[in-house]
């Protein structure tokens, strides 16, 4: 027996998709374009389109449809800006490095880190942030971006090297 896929035309299923996907997709587009307003507009437009196409997109295909459609919309209206990243609230108090002496100053280092991330090309930045902030596996990132895992590993390597080049001098060994 083949279990019939839930229909996206059912509002309940649509809502479920939206709640599962809206935040990660919006963040993904944000990491690319750096404008939260633009990212939200893009993703919302895609979800509105999805509702209209609900009969033609199956539930299991919806995720890749949304990522692809958002990506396409993004390509149409690129305006790369710097991403604004925050630190997790709880972090500042307990930075438990074995010997924090080698950091010139934690705050200064973090500002520099954010700058370094912003100086990455969009290709590396999105992979780096999806992996390090969104904690996505390479496999997941490969699905989202449509790249191979090997390409992700490569971009990740480039990103790390570039950040190290920029920040190395701030880290005393």
């Amino acid at each position, binding site marked *: 027996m083949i279990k019939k896929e839930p229909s996206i035309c059912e509002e309940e299923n649509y809502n479920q998709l939206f709640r599962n996907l809206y935040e990660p997709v919006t963040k993904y587009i944000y990491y690319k374009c750096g404008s939260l307003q633009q990212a939200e507009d893009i993703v919302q437009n895609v979800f*509105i389109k999805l509702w209209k196409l609900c009969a033609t997109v199956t539930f299991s295909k919806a995720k890749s449809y949304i990522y692809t459609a958002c990506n396409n919309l993004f390509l149409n209206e690129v305006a790369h800006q710097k991403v604004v*990243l925050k*630190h997790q609230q709880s972090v500042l108090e307990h930075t438990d490095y074995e010997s924090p002496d080698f950091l010139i100053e934690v705050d200064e280092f973090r500002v520099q880190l954010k700058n370094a991330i912003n100086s990455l090309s969009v290709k590396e930045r999105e992979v780096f942030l999806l*992996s390090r902030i969104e904690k996505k596996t390479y496999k997941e990132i490969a699905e989202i971006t449509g790249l191979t895992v090997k390409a992700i590993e490569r971009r*990740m*390597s480039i990103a790390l090297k570039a950040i190290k080049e920029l*920040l190395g001098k701030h880290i005393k060994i």
Partner: protein
Amino acid sequence: MNNYETDDTFLGRWISGELSKEERIAFEKTKEFKQFTIINSEAQLLEGPTIDTEAALLKIKQQLYTKPKVIRLKQIMRMASAAIIVISLGLFLNSSKTYTTAIGETQTVTLADGSIINLNANSSVSHKRFFWDTNKGVTLNGEAYFTITKGNGFTVQTSIGIVQVLGTQFNIKDQSTFSLKCFEGEVQLTVADSRKKRYRLTKSMQVNIDENIVQESVFSEQIPDWKNGVSVFKNQSLSIVLDELMNYYPIEFESENINTNRLFSGRFTHDNLKTALQATLVPMGVQYQISNNNETIILSE
């Protein structure tokens, strides 16, 4: 030369824990290892933007549900206006044109086929505005003289029944009494009651119907008297004469005090009220008094 510099996926694999044991141990010995470790751990402490999913969902729902509503309303409006257009076009095509004369007024109407209707005072005739040729009917209220062009199917709808016509001239008076006079050709009256009695009239024949009493007779005049500006009566009750007077003059009679069943023979003119009153009332021995506003005539013995 370190591995991470020569192998372009090395650092990527280090992050995901995919390095082999040997690779990892060698990497951990390099002086850059600590820098990468700090970068990695610090990066993981960063946070992306805060996103309000529920607010976005609400926003989308509003867009989704307002848009179709507008479309639906538009469709309803479109359908409604289409319906209105169809209905009004139908009504328009089926509408009739009516000619009406006021008291004391006459009018000549020429129809599409060249037929002429002379409409007497206080009367109206109407016909369909379109496609009249396929159904040459008119509806008469009051009195009119018809000069009909030869052709089939001309009919006049009256309160008594239908008058059917071939090329002919005739007069219909459909008021308190009904009178059909044929001046030329032939007409047929079909009385619209249960018996559907038919009367065929040729030249100089007339039918008078007064409360279901039918009189067939002949007459001598060549055109209806009213076309000469007079009304002619022969042994007709005074009430009919009074009704006729009211068709030509804007007056009313107070006739409670007299017997209006007495019969009158004579005529009155249509263009002078005083003369008309004298001609009709004096011979009958009826006294009359014209009220101040010239509208009410009070009759007494």
